[in-house]
């Protein structure tokens, strides 16, 4: 029985079909979840995909967090279900308080769409179970607001609890401590700026994202 991954769709999301395509290429099942609905249904994992949920007006993710679906996703996460936020999804998760910190404008004040090399720091999360510690992955970034920012206390906590999941090898956006992705204390909620689904096929330049999406499918099957 393949794991079913629910992919949340806000009106301005745009990576939802890409996530479904790459998850299905790995044998999973994708299902779109409309932001106005209040139930995730019987999915085994949830992905909040990239895009511009509500045009990123006010702040990325600021309006999305109040949607009925986000309440359902919060409950799903509280029950231990794997939840991954990619790019705009990461921004939504921080706005919703499921992950600490915030994503600010890139230090260079430019949108950046380019390959990035990230290092996997921890492997006991919903997105990195099949990766190895120290593994370098080539995965594209595509954002204007990916500069991870948090208080010194939060950073100390993330470090103490081994919750910095990915760091950039060559920091493209000014992120604190080169952070590319983090997880919650329970390790079932992961947010990252790079797009694993865009590194899902050698024809696209890299398939390094498959180890992450495969890990998510395995976590979802448990």
């Amino acid at each position: 029985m393949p794991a079913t991954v629910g992919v949340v769709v806000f009106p301005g999301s745009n990576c939802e079909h890409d996530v479904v395509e790459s998850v299905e290429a790995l044998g999973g099942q994708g299902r779109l979840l409309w932001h106005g609905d209040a139930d995730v249904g019987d999915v085994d994992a949830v992905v909040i995909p990239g895009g511009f949920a509500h045009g990123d007006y006010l702040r990325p993710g600021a309006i999305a967090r109040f949607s009925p679906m986000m309440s359902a996703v919060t409950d799903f996460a509280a029950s231990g279900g794997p939840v991954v936020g990619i790019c705009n999804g990461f921004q939504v998760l921080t706005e919703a308080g499921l992950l600490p910190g915030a994503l600010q404008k890139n230090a260079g004040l430019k949108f950046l769409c380019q390959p990035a090399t990230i290092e996997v720091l921890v492997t006991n999360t919903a997105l990195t179970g099949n990766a190895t510690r120290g593994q370098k992955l080539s995965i594209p970034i595509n954002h204007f607001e990916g500069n991870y920012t948090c208080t010194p206390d939060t950073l100390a906590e993330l470090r103490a609890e081994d919750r910095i999941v990915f760091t950039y090898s060559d920091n493209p956006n000014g992120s604190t401590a080169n952070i590319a992705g983090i997880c919650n204390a329970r390790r079932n909620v992961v947010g990252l700026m790079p797009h694993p689904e865009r590194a899902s096929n050698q024809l696209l330049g890299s398939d390094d994202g498959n180890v992450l999406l495969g890990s998510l499918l395995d976590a979802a099957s448990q």
Partner: protein
Amino acid sequence: MTDALHRELGLTDDELARIIEILGREPNHVELAMYSVMWSEHCSYKSSRIHLKRLPTEADHVLVGPGENAGVIDAGDGIAVALRIESHNHPSYIEPYQGAATGVGGIIRDIFTMGARPIAIMDPLRFGPLDDPRSRWVAEGVVSGVSGYGNSVGVPNVGGETVFDETYKGNPLVNVFCLGVLPTERLVLGQASGTGNLAILLGSTTGRDGIGGVSVLASAGFSDDEADADKRPSVQVGDPFEEKRLIEACLQLLDEGLVVGIQDLGGAGLCCAASETASRGGVGMDFDVTAVPRREEGMEPYEVMTSESQERMLAIVEPGEADRVLEICEKWEVLATVVGKVTEGGSLRIVDGLDGPVVGEVPASSLHDDAPLYDRPRAEPADLSEARADLADDALEAPPDMAAALLSLVHDASWVYSQYDHQLFLNTVVGPGSDAAVLRLKHPTTGVDTGRGLALTTDGNHRWCAVDPYVGTVMTVAESVLNLACVGARPQALVNCLNFGNPEHPEVMWQLSQAVDGMTEACEAFDLPVVGGNVSLYNESGGSNIDPTPIVGVVGLVDDLSTVPPGMSWADGDRLVMLGPPSSWLSGSKWAFDSGHRRGSLRPVDLELHIRVTNLVRALVVSGGVSAVHDISTGGLGGALVEMAIASGVGCTVARVGGHGELFSEGPSRVVAAIRPDHLPAVEAAAGDLGVPLTRLGLAHGDAIAVKGLVDVPLAAARSAWERCLPDALGAGTTIG
């Protein structure tokens, strides 16, 4: 009362007389306003139509040719491809960010109007020189606008061109190409039919922004600063989030078969959409101007009808489907309002309430079909023969520092394209910075991968066309076809954006006519149908016209996309050859122009040889016979070698380049190919069989770019100069000049 008004609205006395003849009476204000925008240069193509008729437009695979919102071709496997290119030059000079952003928005609407999901944008951009502060400000704003709108609306930007030249200092060019895919059977046209059907306005509210905007801005030159300030209110503000919801809502309406016809609102706004849908369907329409949701109070009917507020569509719907249409729009938070009803006869009646008084009435088709057609005077420049005899080859000495001259001809455009999402939809196999982009061809509704690819390129060269608009345009089309061959693609269809100066200048009309003739000759030789186009005139400032700049967008098909095309990156030890006829003439080259020599003449293109070169290149790319290939264009052979060496991280040692003429010449029909030593005999044999000249150049090796007797520059230095050009000029917070 219309005596002064019609001139204020840009209509001539003859045009007013014609309107009176059509109506059999004097027009009122709203009617006059509608004719003025619909008969403007921008909407009616009144100066160019007579020439555009000469372009070849037909082929078996063409489903929709010029005249609709976009051209459509059959790509096989039940997939049709819609494509179009447009300019947003004038608005982008006044307000670069919003001008470029709304240009992106407009072209995307043209594509999903045809029922297609937009999957790729390309943006050929032309700016003034980098040492001009205002040009830097325009360039930075335009790129931010394309980025801000395109990324948010969710259409990847997979390529384009960025050219800086003196000629665009007072008039930049912002052209945007868009391509979409649709299931062949879902093709919809922008036409109304069925008496009693409803016209529903979708999307944004209507304001005074952009009244007469596109038509006014694009139909007259910039005279002085004061006039520019007056035109400022005509610039619209784009809302990509509104457009994103509009795309999704419209595609769902089309998926469910709920619309009879659909039309986007571009130049001339509701007036154009209502009259075009009615006139194409051979019907009339009662249009309720009071029902239109507005964002400002006190708007007059003529303002509502001609407003160019962005992100709006007009759908023609059977009354029984209206509720479902409104329901889908509500889901996507898209405002939807019934604003009209299809009627018998051919009258477009503007009414105040559907049963209320008539405030204007014109034959719908007269706004289009009866638009004036001008055969404006054409004249070749008085000094043409003198200019053509003044060859760059004779006039210019070899540069003292050949390496510096060479490196000044090429730059890394990644400062531009790294600001654009170029990967969305997981299609991009070859992205920006290449000869042509290559996308996976997947079915738009089932998602099934055909294993084939779409190849896209945009090309334009004002230098060639300034020297000789006829041959320059032939060379432009030839380059695009060769670019497609470099990624293994067969060309299928062409769209063009003809950017020219003031059509009231006979020399400009001569340039336009020559360019159309050149395009016709090239397209006929390549069996390449022209499926759509856009003409942008009045590109001038301070009384001086831009160099003629026809830009083409060409789409091709890759039959087997199981591997990534070779690209520009060669391997250490590869043998380097040039395929195609040797060339050393310099007129029209970037080096000549940058050296201040902007005239001379071009050699005619041997189109038959060009076809053999493209066939050879395509065959080598498809069969894996070359490890790298790159066409020779801007910067000549030298420019191609520099770009390939930088892409590879491996230098080269090249001999047999006779001098700066051979290094910088941009003569057509040539590529540099890198070949594994054991493949070289087969490539030489293949070239011999096809009668394509092959010149052995040298070897890919080492950490320098060395051209014997001419250039010897460390690869690292070349890379640094190439990479730093745009970031140094544009990166660090420029200020308005």
